[in-house]
């Protein structure tokens, strides 16, 4: 039957497994699809069908992915938010995740905002700050709307110091706040006087010291550090011990030459050295840099941001402009610190899932098998997670490789079509915040991006094509 099939019959069997056996018995090749209705929604399934294997989408994705790969996030320095963020209002506070109003915000984010108001001198006490924040006098916006990212509550207020990351290839700048360390910290909603005092120290001592150090050091490209850390047991989201150590290795000689006084040098080095997550915010801003490069390619189905505000999970798609596609944020499966349980957990929170969007974090879980222990998994589960993500991504990033998978490049470029078609949700490693403000981190674990964000994006992308 040459002109019909041109090759021996080879079947993909969709829907009824019993149909495969007679075909197999007759000697033909047959594979079974474990089919489930895409998004359990007929309209989404039809929208998806229109988007599969389109030359224009493939070309757009190639462009977006090429830009993502070419981006070269480079640490340039540290600056104060009001000086470096274009359009930041004088009384504006940035938060993680998609847009949200004060009334809808979760307690840790409210607590952090109250702390930021006190830190900025807009209120005397957190209680007064909450009244102010609810009064409408403070405006709120996602960090992402300013090229920035922040872990957990992700709070950036005008006088906070920010990392400045430049991508010279695309002449684009991204930002993140500085990691405060562990314990009682603003990003988990703590706002007591010691938390505020620590933020002031970061602004008044740490930031100038870093400015001087980075001036001495010069430009620092971040991808090589991330790549190396992946070979040292980090996945550069929930484990940053190696990357933080590699960063300190670079910073200390420069800090010694930067003319800092002995006390400052000692305090700064001690602080950085005590925080295994110090690199996290740089990792996030670097990921934001790579993904911003990929954003805004008409027709592209690649995800350029995944972020949570503690109430909703949102994604952005390269070809769909600034729209957020949202769904309720999940509760995280994980291990809890002594005395805490799932009942204490706030729903998924923070911009740090930018790392997974970028092909690291949980996507590079094979690099960091210890992570799966949070959910009682085995090392082979970690490898399986990295492999599985390859089924929903456009390509692989050869800049980031996974030793345990024979140096396989990490899967990257989440394709909304593949997510909806396979029902495989992007996996995310994350810390767990207490649902009450100020208690802090209560555990860590693994969660998945809600599929409905992706199906809504598929529907929207289909609308942009007439045929």
């Amino acid at each position: 039957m040459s002109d019909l099939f041109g090759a021996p019959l080879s079947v993909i069997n969709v829907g009824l497994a019993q149909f495969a056996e007679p075909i197999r018995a007759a000697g033909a090749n047959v594979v079974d699809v474990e089919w489930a209705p895409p998004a359990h929604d007929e309209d989404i399934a039809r929208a998806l069908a229109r988007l599969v294997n389109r030359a224009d989408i493939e070309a757009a994705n190639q462009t977006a992915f090429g830009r993502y790969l070419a981006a070269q996030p480079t640490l340039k320095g540290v600056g104060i938010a009001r000086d470096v963020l274009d359009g930041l209002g004088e009384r504006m506070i940035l938060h993680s995740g998609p847009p949200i109003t004060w009334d809808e915000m979760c307690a840790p984010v409210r607590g952090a905002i109250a702390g930021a108001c006190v830190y900025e001198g807009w209120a005397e006490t957190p209680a007064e700050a909450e009244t102010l924040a609810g009064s409408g006098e403070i405006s709120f916006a996602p960090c992402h709307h300013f090229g920035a990212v922040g872990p957990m509550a992700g709070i950036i207020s005008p006088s906070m110091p920010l990392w400045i990351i430049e991508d010279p290839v695309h002449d684009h700048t991204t930002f993140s706040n500085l990691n405060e360390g562990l314990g009682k910290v603003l990003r988990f909603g703590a706002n007591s006087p010691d938390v505020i005092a620590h933020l002031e120290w970061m602004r008044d001592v740490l930031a100038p010291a870093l400015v001087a150090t980075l001036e001495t050091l010069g430009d620092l490209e971040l991808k090589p550090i991330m790549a190396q850390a992946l070979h040292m047991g980090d996945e550069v989201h929930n484990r940053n011990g190696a990357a933080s150590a590699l960063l300190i290795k670079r910073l200390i000689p420069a800090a010694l030459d930067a003319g800092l006084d002995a006390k400052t040098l000692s305090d700064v080095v001690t602080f950085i050295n005590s925080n295994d997550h110090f690199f996290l915010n740089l990792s996030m801003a670097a990921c934001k840099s790579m993904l911003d490069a990929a954003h805004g390619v008409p027709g592209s189905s690649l995800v350029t941001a995944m972020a949570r505000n503690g109430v909703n999970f949102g994604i952005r798609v390269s070809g769909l402009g600034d729209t957020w596609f949202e769904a309720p944020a999940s509760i995280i499966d994980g291990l809890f610190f002594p005395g805490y349980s799932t009942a204490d957990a706030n729903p998924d929170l923070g911009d740090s899932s930018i790392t997974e969007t970028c092909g690291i974090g949980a996507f590079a879980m094979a690099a960091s098998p210890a992570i799966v222990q949070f959910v009682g998994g085995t090392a082979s589960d970690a490898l399986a997670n990295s492999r599985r993500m390859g089924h929903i991504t456009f390509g692989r990033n050869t800049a980031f490789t996974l030793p345990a998978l024979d140096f396989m490049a990490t899967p990257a470029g989440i394709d909304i079509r593949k997510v909806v078609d396979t029902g495989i949700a992007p996996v995310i490693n994350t810390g767990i915040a207490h649902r009450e403000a100020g208690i802090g981190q209560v555990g860590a674990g693994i969660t998945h991006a809600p599929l409905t964000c992706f199906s809504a994006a598929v529907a929207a992308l289909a609308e942009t094509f007439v045929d």
Partner: protein
Amino acid sequence: MNMGTRIIADMYRDSVALMKISSAITLLDGVSQASCIMATPANLDLLREAGLIDGDPGARPNEVLIAVEAETDTALGAALDAAEAELRADPVIADGGGDVSEPLRSIEMALDANVDANFTLIATPGPFAAAEAFKSVRLGLNVMMFSDNVSIEDELALKTQADQAGLMVMGPDCGTAIIDGSPLGFANVVRRGDIGIVAASGTGLQQVSCLIDAAGCGVSQAIGTGGRDLDSRIGGITTKRAITSLGADPDTKIIVLISKPPAPDVAKAVLEHAVATGKPVVACLLGHTPSEPSLSGVSFASTLEEAAYLAIAASGATGNKPGGLIEAALPGLNADRRYLRALYSGGTFCYEALTMLGGTLDAVYSNTSSTGIQTLTDPWTSTAHTVLDLGDDLFTRGRPHPMIDHRLRNDRIVAEAQDPDTAVILFDVVLGHGSHEDPVAAMAPALSAVPGQKDGGPVLLGFVCGTGGDPQGLTRQREAMADLGVLVADNNAQAVRTAAAILESAQ
């Protein structure tokens, strides 16, 4: 000595991996020194000390620098190429422990796992089936849609897109096919041979292929098109493509076309298309009065039985001559029993019976419309002569098809037997992959509950559509029917004629 460098941008490799490549390149003919490094200042210093580079090669810390010293330009170029190829090679993914296999969750994922795939068999709920079919066509796959409940607009769009892409869409509502000897969907195990079948009717395809098998002949390909393909809105897109394929297929000597009533203009176009292949054509277009009697090369058959007979003859064998009755003596009728009650699981059998009875019996009622047939107002209750398609959506809503689940028909058999007007209960038994594993056993409780003829009961009359190769066994099923007191016909047309003869003899 020739020295050269090459920069591989934006790549990170572990120093051990790079040393491994360096040492392999050093061993190449004509190469005296080679090194691959991450181009950090410290590493660049090392290369300078080794005399492999001079000055600033312009590489950055996130780039791999290949530096080679070789005896000739050719060797230098070859070494740089070899190093780059090695760096860019896709790693063979080692099984680092754990389960590598992942369930295939989409057609695209299956295509990644089975790159040779050329066909999708879709049996999902109807509303999603069209989406999966569109996807398949976009991915360059031929399609068989077992699913029904697909709109005619979708069917037209699918078939048009497929045709433009050089692909075939069989269905929707394509229950059966045999491609390259593989039974697809509800198909019988049929010997391979030189008869190609194109059918817009599932049970029609099954009946003809089974009768061909019984005569010792075989089928090259049996292509289902879906019941609406010869509708004027579809225009026979799949039928024509299938005919073209069979025309080009060296293993196909005879082409058989089967359908329920086609749109006349579509029938004409399709027949002309078939004639153009130059191969003998047998056409069984039930309910269609050929307006093209002079179309040379086409033999028209009025029943599936006749279609099989003509195809068998064209294949050089001799089949059972059509038009006869069952060999056993016809039974008489009891008392006032005077009506036929035909309970079909196969839609085409129902339709064929209606076309045969329409001019023979008075007052035939059905849930299927046909010339001279009256529509039942309540299909759950029989009136006069009643011929039912129990595979109709009306009966299958919320329950499996009667070829799989016999409960509905069993209940109806018992009910008909209790009706004093019922003279003959006629039914089909369809074998093959997908059908009930032992259909006569499943019907036995109902059949044995019908009073025998000597006890004043109605005549039980049935036939089996199947082959000796089918998992259920043709002979075993026929014998089981006979043991239950059923008169067993060879095929539907013979059963219908026999029923008519029994009714006539009583008048």
